[in-house]
């Protein structure tokens, strides 16, 4: 096949960019993602600059530069400062530590107290590579996140950005690109897990006129922030992935639909688009080829349902974000009734590396039906919360105990909620199951967008189910009856149960409604809305029964089922509880044991918190 001659030599561009980075001298990477910024990352960067990083000349004539990066992933330990050439990571850094770090870098000494402590080994870790959190990960989509300055296109190019795009433009074989993606076994990372190559091919089959490529960056699951990380920390990878997709399917215009709650992602994407256009890596006749591709940013307005593909398209078109019937595929008639390819952020982020390293490389990772790696937002009651990327065959146990460092405060593992409001709860018996699309679906959960909330024994599973049902009910678009009305009734039942007003037949009704919503709803969000309830009913039915029959919350969470009592033998009659009770429910005379009037008690727990003698218990 004849190669197309491009007027941008990406290898040369990469060499020049790497040269620029060498000029920076020693790089001090400070995580400047949303979480670390909240913890003072920007002040830390300023302090470094004030001390002379960026400009100062060190002993042996070396420079030192402070680089604000994207999320390194280990959010629990933020603000993180990484010195790559010394393989050092400092955790929980504050502005007060900066001077000490700066000076230690001059003298090549290590500040012990800022090193990460492995909770299992109870040992400070000197070398990055020995940190379990990273050692077990395979970062491909997140490869550059935390290692480059996302606001500099040079840093991205130095790390290889746009090489894959250059390759496909030179080879000029759209079908070849689609074949490569098909062979890689990549599946949609947004939740459904549809085969990406197959999707691309069906859009390709309708090429010829105007076509669109859309990136779904409306990441709305509570606790999920993988897509935000890619958009904020390595925007060029996303843009490159979209451009390759557009080239493959024959599109010339693209949209990135980003939720408005991600202002930093919007800012960085806009910067990256502008910089890429200036270098002819996007826009008209990219790198001198025949291929043109422009990308627009469309900000969402806060509706969870707009993450659903057809609602997202309606929203871009200026309509109310409500899902549309899908009897006509968007590959044929999507955005503005034109053929449209819609993929999730992480899906696009995987594309450039598949093109550069080949489908075989990607195909080797993962399980039989789920290839490659998957990012997860690991949150909840584990020691190491943060953003991780692991091969698809990684087990839940590895994630919770190796990467996550086990359950906080030595508590007992209870469950993992995976896949957000569309997913389900998994238990101890699933700990050794690999994270694979089909396996998870089989047990009533789903990969979803990849939120992983770890729960310990203190979590009330009925309350978790109520929480998610409340979320789905409020975020239902209100269009189809089963989702709108069914979730309302399910929520009402769950609310009754956590208040101790449930009836045993409520459980059957929850299951019946769950099935009606699952089978009857219009869109994927409706069809999966009952999952959190159905999966907990399947694995934790006893806990529901305890709430209903015994009027007890085994985890001691549901306040309506709590009964505060003062143990007479321990009470000294100090009156502190009575003084702190906002409801005036505690009676008694000084130096005599007090009593709680259960009718007045609002179960706020203020008495228990304030008792100096631990005389108050819940039952």
């Amino acid at each position: 096949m004849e190669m197309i001659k491009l007027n941008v030599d990406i290898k040369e561009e990469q060499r020049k960019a790497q040269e620029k980075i060498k000029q920076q001298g020693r790089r001090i990477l400070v995580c400047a993602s949303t979480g670390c910024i909240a913890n003072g990352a920007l002040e830390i960067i300023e302090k470094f600059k004030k001390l002379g990083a960026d400009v100062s000349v060190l002993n042996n004539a070396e420079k030192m530069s402070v680089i604000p990066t994207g999320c390194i992933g280990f959010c629990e330990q933020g603000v993180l400062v990484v010195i790559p050439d010394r393989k050092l990571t400092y955790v929980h850094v504050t502005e007060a530590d900066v001077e000490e770090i700066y000076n230690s870098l001059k003298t090549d000494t290590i500040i012990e107290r800022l090193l990460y402590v492995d909770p299992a080994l109870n040992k400070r870790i000197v070398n990055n590579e020995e940190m379990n959190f990273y050692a077990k990960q395979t970062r491909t989509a997140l490869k550059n996140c935390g290692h480059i300055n996302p606001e500099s296109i040079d840093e991205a190019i130095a790390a290889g950005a746009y090489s894959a795009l250059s390759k496909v433009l030179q080879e000029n074989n759209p079908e070849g690109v689609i074949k490569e993606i098909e062979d890689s076994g990549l599946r949609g990372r947004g939740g459904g897990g549809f085969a990406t190559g197959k999707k691309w091919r069906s859009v390709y089959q309708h090429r010829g006129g105007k076509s669109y490529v859309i990136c779904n960056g409306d990441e709305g699951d509570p606790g999920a922030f993988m897509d935000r990380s890619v958009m904020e920390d390595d925007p060029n990878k996303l843009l490159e992935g979209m451009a390759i997709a557009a080239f493959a399917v024959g599109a010339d215009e693209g949209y990135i639909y980003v939720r408005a709650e991600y202002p930093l992602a919007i800012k960085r994407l806009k910067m990256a688009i502008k910089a890429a256009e200036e270098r002819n890596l996007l826009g008209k006749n990219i790198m001198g080829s025949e291929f043109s591709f422009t990308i627009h940013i469309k900000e969402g307005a806060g509706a969870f349902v707009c993450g659903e593909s057809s609602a997202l398209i309606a929203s871009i078109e200026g309509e109310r974000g409500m899902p549309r019937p899908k009897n006509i595929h968007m590959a044929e008639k999507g955005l503005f009734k034109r053929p449209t390819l819609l993929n999730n952020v992480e899906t696009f982020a995987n594309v450039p590396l598949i093109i550069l390293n080949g489908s075989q490389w990607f195909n080797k990772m993962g399980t039989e039906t789920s290839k490659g790696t998957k990012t997860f937002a690991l949150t909840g009651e584990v020691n190491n919360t943060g953003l991780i990327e692991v091969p698809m065959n990684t087990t839940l146990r590895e994630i919770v105990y190796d990467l996550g460092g086990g359950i906080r405060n030595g508590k007992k593992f209870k469950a993992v909620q995976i896949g957000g409001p569309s997913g389900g709860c998994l238990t101890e018996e699933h700990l050794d199951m690999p994270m694979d699309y089909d396996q998870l679906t089989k047990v009533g959960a789903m990969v979803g967008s990849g939120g992983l909330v770890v729960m310990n024994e203190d979590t009330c599973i009925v309350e978790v189910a109520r929480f998610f049902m409340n979320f789905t009910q409020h975020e239902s678009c209100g269009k189809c009856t089963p989702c709108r009305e069914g979730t309302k009734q399910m929520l009402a039942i769950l609310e009754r149960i956590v208040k101790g007003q449930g009836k045993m037949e409520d459980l059957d009704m929850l299951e019946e409604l769950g099935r009606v919503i699952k089978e009857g709803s219009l869109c994927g969000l409706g069809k999966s809305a009952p999952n959190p309830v159905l999966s907990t009913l399947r694995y934790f039915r006893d806990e529901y029964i305890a709430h209903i029959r015994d009027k007890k919350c085994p985890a001691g969470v549901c306040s309506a089922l709590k009964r505060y009592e003062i143990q007479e033998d321990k009470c000294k009659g100090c009156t502190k509880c009575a003084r702190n009770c906002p409801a005036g429910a505690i009676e008694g005379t000084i130096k005599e044991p007090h009593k709680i009037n259960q009718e007045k008690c609002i179960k706020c727990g203020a008495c228990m918190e304030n008792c100096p003698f631990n005389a108050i218990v819940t039952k």
Partner: protein
Amino acid sequence: MSDKKTLFIDNLEVEFTDEKTVLEVIRNNGFNVPTFCDRPDLTQFGACRMCIVEQEGRGIQASCTMLPRAGIKIHLNSAKVRKIRKTILELLLANHKRECLTCEKSGNCELQKYAAEYGITDIRFPKLEEKNYLETDTSSPSLVRDPSKCILCGACVRACTEFQGHSVLGFVNRGSNTQVQPMNGRKLSEVDCVYCGQCQAVCPTGAISIKSDIEKVWSEINNPEKKVVVQVAPSVRVALGEEFNLEPGENTIGKIYSAARKLGFDLVFDTNFSADLTITEEAAEFVQRFMNKKNLPLFTSCCPAWVRYVETQHPELINHLSSCKSPQGMMSAVLRGFLGKYYPEYNKNNTVIVSVMPCTAKKYEITREQMAGETDYVLTTQEFAKMIKNAGIEFKQLKDEKADSPFGLYSGAGTIFGASGGVAEAAIRTAYNIITGEELSNVNITELRGVGANSRTKDTVIDIKGTKVKVRVVSTLKEAEKSIKELKEGKADFGMLEVMACPGGCVNGGGQPVSCLNSLIKAKRAAGLYKEDEDLPLRKSHQNPDILKLYTECLGGKFGSEQAHHLLHTEYTNKFVNSYKDI
């Protein structure tokens, strides 16, 4: 000719050709499934989920948005399907203001009908409490909106957007707080609603209903001091019968006259007469404008929704509107002016004028200050049918009667007013005569006929002795907007523009018996009107002897005379309001 393919409905092999959905295949083969949101003339919505079927191998699917494929096997009433439908009905009823006995739509409500058919006797979910009822909006002269009865099928939202391009109604809020509302939570009378009533016509429940004037009319009839006169609009005659199990399109005008007298109306006239009068005036006006090349194209002014649309949305174009009152307005003006001349016992104080119209916007029209005091009450076809039922009249068995004189005789031109294109066709028949002094030989202007979704803009060119005039006919305001755009861009090459707001014209008006479930009904009604036109001895308005007599005896002897102008013409005002100013 498309290929015939087959699929299986409840194990029965059925053929299909170019049906777009499985629901259509189901209906074309003598089956049916319930649905609230599917309306043949509106886009697919897929929201209510009542039309679900079970497909072997693929489970539950909504048939309204399912492509028919050869060989698929579907079941309309499997256990699973019935379970889901029943639960959906229960869920809807739980959240519904269940005051069926006192609901305007009782007996006509699809939710009520399916609840009965599915035997919903026990609702397992808590009842919507009275304190949570949403406010009923009675502000409009034509329609009543009771949001607590809304099941959010979105038919009204689509009708407003897809027929009128107007989007007066839209969805707000999310989840179970979702509602349909006029902009910014306002009342219907506070937005630019044109009162066409199509939202009501497609509403499956009592969430949007016609503002009833039945009781007011009964009390006038029952008042011995009052003489109550009624006029009946063209399209009522071909639709009213449907309420009494007659076929759509069957002309029941003789029975209608009879029923009106049985109800206690003292005199019965026909709006077809004043439709003829509208034509003689409007044709004369058109000829004058055409000769002077002034204010062309002439917009017809029979449709009050269209008039209100021009006044609120395009007030700079009001000089294009014909100054003629609508046939309803002309009839009432003539009755107010001259009834006493022919019936001396009728005077200003004792005469009550009621009109029976296919239209909800007519209720608004009589509130216009320019027409105040002429028509007292408007009853829609639906309300009139209710009165007949209420009075225990066996409509089917009524003997045909005739209208009273002298305002009852009409030509075929008057009768076709009820279908989109009819006004223009009637006007051409007369304008040709006014200009040339000769009679048009072929009075059937078929290019302007047709009421289907593909006939919403129709053009014809009339050759008047060498002078060619393009006449355009439009139904729905969304379609009218396109012609307005052409006009504003200087590209309009038509001399006359007939606009009816309802799709297909008055035969499909917002006050007609419910016809939204079958898109062929309006065509049958229109066919009924064209048949009457064919059958009548007179087919041109200017040949109606009673019209000529009226001009001679009361209106100065000629079309467009000063007296006629004074009585039969009206004025328009700029009603533009900046709706966004307080947002």
